[in-house]
């Protein structure tokens, strides 16, 4: 268990605790989506595309000098983008090992796990998998 990741997840859950209504929750997710930097159109390559049935997600990963992973992500749907922002916030700057083994329990805790079910088909579930794959890949490269 990675302490940084745990602390970040606790923090996110606390932020969401104040919302009583679903619409308030989404208001906040939309805000997060809007404040996440958009990837330049030139970076939205098919190679980076995580194909969902409806909304599309792009994900790029790079290694920092200290060996940790840096993620950049975007989506054409703003709620998806807000959720993407939360996942990037949780995993950014962690070691490849921590990313590969990450258990993102906060999503279920804040009640947004329906967005991760395959039926919602928004690419988020695949995105989480892809992030872990990057963790594994960067681990292998050493």
């Amino acid at each position, binding site marked *: 268990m990675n302490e940084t990741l745990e602390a970040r997840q606790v923090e996110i859950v606390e932020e969401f605790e104040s919302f009583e*209504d*679903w619409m308030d929750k*989404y208001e906040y997710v939309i805000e997060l989506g809007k404040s996440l930097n958009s990837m330049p159109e030139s970076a939205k390559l098919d190679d980076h595309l995580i194909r969902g049935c*409806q909304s599309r997600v792009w994900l790029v990963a790079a290694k920092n000098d200290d060996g940790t992973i840096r993620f950049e992500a975007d989506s054409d749907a703003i*709620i998806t983008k807000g959720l993407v922002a939360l996942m990037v916030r949780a995993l950014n700057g962690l070691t490849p090992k921590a990313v590969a083994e990450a258990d993102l329990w906060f999503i279920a805790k804040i009640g947004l796990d329906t*967005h991760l079910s395959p039926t919602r088909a928004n690419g988020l579930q695949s995105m989480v998998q892809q992030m872990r794959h990057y963790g594994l890949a960067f681990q292998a490269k050493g």
Partner: protein
Amino acid sequence: MKSLDPNQIRLQFPILNREVNGKPLIYLDHAASAQKPLAVIEAQREYLSHYHSNVHRGVHALSNQATEAFESARRSVSASINAEFVEEVIWVAGATDGINLIAQSWGRDNIKQGDVVLITEMEHHANIVPWQMLVKACGARLEAVGVTDDGVLDKTDFQNKLKLQPKLVALTHVSNTLGTINDVKFWADEAHAAGSIVLIDGSQAMPHMDVDVQALGCDFYVFSGHKAYGPTGIGVLYGKRQLLEEMSPWRGGGEMIDVVSLKHGTTFAGLPYKFEAGTPHISGAIALGVALNWIQGIGKGAMQDHENTLTAQARRGLGQIEGLRLIGNAPNSSSVVSFVVDDVHPYDIGTLLDSQGIAVRTGHHCTQPLMERFGVVGTVRASFGAYNTLQEVDALVSGTQRAIRMLKG
């Protein structure tokens, strides 16, 4: 014609009492699947609790009872579409299954190298992909009739493509994405004059309007049970008797045979059993018969009147929202309203409507070529049934306004 009181009808739909995300459920996804009235729920329960057994093979009382109910359901279907003969009604898993049966049986028997199969740009994937697979296997060619900006079949294009003398014309009765009601009688006549066989996908028509296969003059008609207030996993393929008799069986197995011999080969059963290999979806068929009788009890005319009122109100209300564009504006349309909003992804609107308890569908609705035609990634689609009310339509309009404010604000 007596008019319909949706509040009375709602009493027969237990699911409509539930809440979603802490809000009363407003179910506006009829075109994906209809909810079930008590009569249908009860028919399945009754079958499973009192007379479940296999059909057509028992000497015992339960099997006889199940067989009688199963065949009686077939008679209900036959009557509801005005088939000339009961054996023209084949049980299938749904419209998709029915179309695949036609493609793999009639298609394999009749489509040859260089032949043309004609569909339209507004077809559901179920009426596209089986034909793509078939033409690829047979060296034939698939052509599609274009759609106008209003979401109507392009008449000139249709007539031009009929000059290719397609072996088969397969088109939808009602568009699941646009709501457009096609003049299938007219096109069946035109297609027959061009020497084509005509298949109509009636999935979106059967729950809403009178269907008379003899008056339409089509050769094949398919629909799914679950969109017509019946269960999932059951549907109907209607075919003209002579055509069905000439066709080879598709799936082999029990039920569909006359005599099976390892020495002399197998002879097949007559209609309709030739196409019904294996144990059928007995409870589904029985409950579909009940669903169609239930619809008839209310009256399709009354249903259509009510649904037209809802649809008109939705189109009026949504049409006034700034930046919102209705996709599909056919003069003759069913209870489906599809729309997009400038700079807003349909998924976001669908999510925010869901959090207000309003169930709509978003995405491409299994009609990707149509999305491409209109240059959109997807739409938000609301669709109405007999149990929907004007208050629910108003909630859709105000819910959509609220969602747009949140997303654009």
